[in-house]
């Protein structure tokens, strides 16, 4: 990316000025994830002018896009060549950008099978708190010298700098897909998903809610057909299946709509990240289980402290995904040694504390 680019120069100036004036910046792409994380504060730094796909090499399985590129545009460009972002990033609004996708670090229903957004980042360039444009990683999997800073940016919530451009690994769209449904209670469903995970079935996604386990098969025709034959369950009509998974990906599903209503009434939508085999937790509230048991959503009035205690004992962590009252802290507290490393990293990337202060943790 050339420093002559006016959009980039303006961003560099805005960052330098903010640092000099001790002001803070709230990094905005499409602002579709404003609800997520701790509240933002600061002058808006708008990334949308820095947009466009810089390069796309389908035979190299890599696409490089500037941060302000609409995710929708990127995905349709990939689809034209029969490729996709295999980790299915959620789209909470039409204006979501590539930069925001990486910064938020959220992945969709296929994550347990294919990997997270982090796993698909090959390289990135970053505007740090000194107004420096830095590039890390590259355009191939086996290229990195030095530390893998590009992947560190996934999920960093804009606290380390402005992601300017990202190179992402893309994969071919699988030839075949099918959705199967099974009636199972929560404990049986968790066990079943894990058992299947140890067998060579082409299971790409799973969801359990309210006594029903739904799985998506994806892969070669032969593999998907064989699995349909042997796994049993009820085969769901293709279009219905597609709608179902899209609803889970983008949180437009009934479960999430109920959740949003409950949040308006004062409840909290928690995102639990757990070892996949964790048995049903003693939680008061409706649970949606994804990622083979590793991601669980629950709407509950239960106290944050008791819920976090329960989840931590199980080896996981809990995030306040949506709530009016975020006083319990959105992200789970870190061990002191890790918190210290976080503080040092923040100070190194953003010495003046300009970027999205407090969006991840107070003081960061």
């Amino acid at each position, binding site marked *: 990316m050339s420093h002559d680019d006016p959009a980039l120069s303006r961003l560099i100036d805005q960052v330098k000025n903010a640092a000099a004036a001790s002001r803070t910046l709230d990094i905005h792409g499409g602002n579709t994830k404003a609800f997520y994380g701790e509240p933002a504060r600061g002058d808006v730094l708008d990334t949308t002018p820095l947009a466009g796909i810089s390069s796309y*090499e389908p*035979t*190299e*399985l890599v696409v490089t896009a500037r941060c302000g590129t609409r995710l929708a545009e990127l995905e349709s460009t990939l689809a034209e060549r*029969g490729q996709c972002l295999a980790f299915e990033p959620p789209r909470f609004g039409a204006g979501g950008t590539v930069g925001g996708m990486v910064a938020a*670090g959220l992945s969709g229903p296929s*994550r347990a099978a294919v990997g997270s957004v982090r796993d698909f980042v090959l390289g990135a360039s970053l505007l*740090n708190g*000194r107004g*420096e444009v*830095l590039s*890390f990683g590259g*355009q*191939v*999997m*086996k*290229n990195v*010298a*030095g*530390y*893998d*800073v590009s*992947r*560190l940016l996934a*999920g*960093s919530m804009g*606290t380390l700098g402005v992601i300017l451009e990202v190179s992402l690994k893309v*994969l071919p769209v699988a030839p075949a897909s099918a959705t199967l449904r099974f009636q199972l209670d929560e404990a049986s469903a968790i*066990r079943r998903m*894990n058992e299947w*995970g*140890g067998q*060579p079935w*082409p299971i790409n996604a799973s969801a359990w809610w309210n006594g029903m386990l739904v799985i998506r098969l994806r*892969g*070669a025709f*032969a*593999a998907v057909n*064989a699995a349909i034959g042997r796994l049993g369950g009820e085969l769901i009509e293709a279009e219905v299946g597609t709608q179902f998974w899209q609803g889970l990906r983008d949180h437009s599903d009934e479960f999430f709509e109920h959740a949003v209503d409950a949040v308006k009434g004062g409840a909290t939508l928690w995102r639990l*990240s757990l*070892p*996949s*085999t964790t048995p049903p937790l003693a939680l008061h509230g409706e649970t949606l289980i994804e990622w083979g048991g590793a*991601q669980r959503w629950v709407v509950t009035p239960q106290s944050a402290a008791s819920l976090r205690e329960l989840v931590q004992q199980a*080896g*996981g*962590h809990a995030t306040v995904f949506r709530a009016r009252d975020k006083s319990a802290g959105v992200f*789970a*507290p*870190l*061990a002191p*040694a*890790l918190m210290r*490393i*976080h503080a*040092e*990293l923040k100070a*190194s*990337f953003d010495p003046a504390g300009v970027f999205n202060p407090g969006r*991840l943790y107070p003081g960061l």
Partner: protein
Amino acid sequence: MNAPSRNDLAPADDRAHRRTQVVAELRAVLPPHALLWHTEDTVPYECDGLTAYRQQPLVVALPETEAQVAAVLKVCHRLEVPVVARGAGTGLSGGALPHHLGVTLSLAKFNRILGIDPLARTARVQCGVRNLAISEAAAAHRLYYAPDPSSQIACTIGGNVAENSGGVHCLKYGLTLHNVMRVRGFLADGKPVEFGSEALDCAGLDLMTVLVGSEGMLAVITEVTVRLIPSPQVARCIMASFDDIRHAGDAVAQVIAAGIIPAGLEMMDKPMTAAVESFVHAGYDLDAAAILLCESDGAPEEVDEEIARMVEVLRASGASGIQVSENEAQRLKFWSGRKNAFPASGRISPDYMCMDSTIPRKRLADILIAIAQMEKKYGLRCVNVFHAGDGNLHPLILFDANDADQLHRCEQFGAEILETSVALGGTITGEHGVGIEKLASMCVQFSPEEREQMMGVKRAFDPKELLNPGKVIPTLHRCAEGGKMHVRGGLLPFADLPRF
């Protein structure tokens, strides 16, 4: 690079005095047999797989418990003694090269498999467990650990974490980073730390991304929890011959363009094929300009389907001959030459220098043609193997180091290969060896600001910069071959290991 410190080159007396001090302190925290400092005892630790670089450590510590590891680190932190962690010492980029005033911290005794959870598909192992040992232990559950670096029968999982090792199957199954869930260990000050989780993510910044591949510079890892995946029911390999390099290069791109992600995709050029055929007698086509090995794994039906698609693509790309393995023995025979590329090269030349660069797949033919021209220009042969799956090229320049002019020409040849890689849109993943400054390499790849930012990352974990400081080899390598490795008289370090 760093301000002069007490750990810079010191006269022999100072070093002896320092050793006495460090030995006295470490003796208090380690059993007697776990501390070595006499030259005859520390010689085996003076290098890793990169034998051209040797350095006696001050002391070698071989702790047996995590408490001892912590204690050693605390002592070193207090005394400001550098610490270089070492697994099996098979690394080819000098990651375990000792520091002349430092402690080599061997983790070799941490070789227990702590537990396998077949339902959760995880294995919790100590850092010194061999990579292949994990898959061997998981086999009973029809699971395995996917990343398969070339030295997997000997290298440790701790070393894999340090190097973010890949392997032939990494295009389909990912690098170490994609297959490790959690690591535990200690920071430079001896405080315990844990990165990652048995869940699929953890709160805060994803520190695993910088920890994996950090070559022992951010923390000392003692325990690793890895992801296990179902063993493929079937694996079949296609061996395709091409009478034109360009067709072979295009075939590689066409396989990917067809939407196929092979389990393995490797290429050998004609001279390399000749070298390996005379070594393993596997029946390679000696007339082929290039041989492609293309593997599919999975359920029987899907492998059949995928092999059929691959064959179609290879044929359409101009393959002059195609064989498909009928059974496991034949599949292994197809791979045997590729695995023996290094020893085979060692038989036909007194020395060779192995390069490591990455190029876009579609430029493979261009670089091989350019290398053929360089052979004439420098009057040296160069045989090539290529991880076609991820664009990682290993030219092996053959020469005789007894002839100073050949050595010189070899280095120039190597430099031109790297420059050409960059010019073709690729990158230099590894660059070390005779006459090349590590700083020059890092300066070529990164700007001063980028290097300073990376130092910031380093200091966030290790403010005193005691873990693996001042390394000769600055770049981190994915492939076990590392950057430029000079092999003398066919005597490869760890000669019995298969090589890719």
